[in-house]
């Protein structure tokens, strides 16, 4: 009787093993969770704290790009960071400004936080840099445990919240706008 029960469990055991294998595959080579099937545009739309940014993306005409091939990493100012600009840049008359602002927050490729941390560990005290789609440089550095991003004009922000790794890139929420408003 006991043997019969064991045999009955065998298919489940096989399923478990197969499932375990798939779970293991979900971790990438750097230990970061595998990307979801979402796009950058969808990930931004789904995150409540990026509502304002979503409006800026749509107004700037970059939704299709963020649904497309990529990959890009979007340093995504949260609602509080965009503030008034978030609503005003959603205005029809501000399409060009929206696009210009966004391009300063997008870099090529997929940058996970682990990648940034690893580069900082390698890169020394002066920080490490990435080029934006507006042809500027973002410099990453550490302030304690926090990763700080500084734009060429001195605008700074900190990585905040959780990153979202998606099919065409990574959304990295930041608590500031990476273009100085003056």
């Amino acid at each position, binding site marked *: 009787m006991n043997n019969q029960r064991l045999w009955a469990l065998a298919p489940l055991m096989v399923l478990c093993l197969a499932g375990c294998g798939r779970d293991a595959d979900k971790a990438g*080579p750097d230990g970061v969770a595998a990307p979801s099937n979402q796009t950058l545009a969808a990930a931004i739309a789904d995150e409540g704290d990026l509502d304002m940014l979503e409006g800026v993306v749509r107004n700037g005409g970059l939704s299709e790009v963020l649904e497309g091939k990529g*990959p890009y990493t979007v340093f995504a100012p949260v609602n509080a960071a965009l503030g008034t600009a978030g609503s*005003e840049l959603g205005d029809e008359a501000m399409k060009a400004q929206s696009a210009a602002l966004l391009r300063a927050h997008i870099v090529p490729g997929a940058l996970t936080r682990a990648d940034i941390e*690893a580069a900082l560990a390698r890169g020394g005290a002066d920080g*490490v840099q990435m080029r934006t789609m507006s*042809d500027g440089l973002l410099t990453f550095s550490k302030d304690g445990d926090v990763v700080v991003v500084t734009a060429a004009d001195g605008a700074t922000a900190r990585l905040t919240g959780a990153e979202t790794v998606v099919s065409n890139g990574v959304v990295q929420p930041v608590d500031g706008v990476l273009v100085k408003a003056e």
Partner: protein
Amino acid sequence: MKRSITLTSALALTLAISGAALAQNGNGNGNGNGRGNGNGGGDNARQERGNGNGGENRGGGNDNRGGDNGRGDDRMERQVEGRIPDVARDMARSQDRMERDVRREVEQRVVVDNGVVVLRREANRGMMNGCPPGLAKRDNGCLPPGQARQIERARDPYNRYNYVWRTLGGDGDYQYRDGYVYRTTPQGGLLGYLPVLGGILSPGNTWPSQYAYQQPPQSLSQYYGLTDGAQYRYADGVLYRVDPQTSSIGQVAALLTGQQFNVGQRLPAGYDVYNVPYAYRDQYADSARSQYRYNDGNVYQVDPTTQLVQAVIQLLT
């Protein structure tokens, strides 16, 4: 299935590229002969683009590219050994002087590097002199018909977002008007103007006839899947879909840095963080011997010590 499609695409591409030497060995490191480039080394099996013209630290293909990692046997990439010299040359050919100037400008901007068309981002962002058609030059810039309208607009609350145009770089002040950004001296003298994404370069608008562009190299078209028969135009970091008949702008196809690097060239600032697309990370993982960085559809293999580009790997999907 995926693999067979990939290989078919690669074969098709091979046939399509006349004279381009593709990666021929199993490790995908591309030992094909580079195009003749006038530097006396045309038969060097390890030459890649970047040997000869252009002159900025491009000499001498790096021969530290022996395939030591077995990569590339079934992946969707090939080495850059040649690109199709499909140069953007369909600028207007009318008789007036302005269009002749534009054509000359286009020819200067399209950089043919060792038979390879590479996208470039101009230091001045392709800013043009004078005023856009229909606008008159005045002491304080380009005015549309009706100066009062201009003055009224100058007071509009959105002027406070002119700061976003500082991302264009360069000296001077920036103002946005009617689809164009104007760069002026602090005293108001006009220095140039630039059609911008989201402005005149928006879906539904006609491409400004005087605005120079480049057509993307075939490798980039392949990567982004731009095979629908439309025309694609690259200008100032943006790839636009354009109706070839009407020059009407469709969607924005991609954002690009517009930077491309040659073998032997030092990787410029701005690529310190590992950023390889997730699907390629197993294949192109940083090691003590090589680093890998992604940009505009290419993965660059870089010497960690010297930061010299060892190989350029075009991603085809």
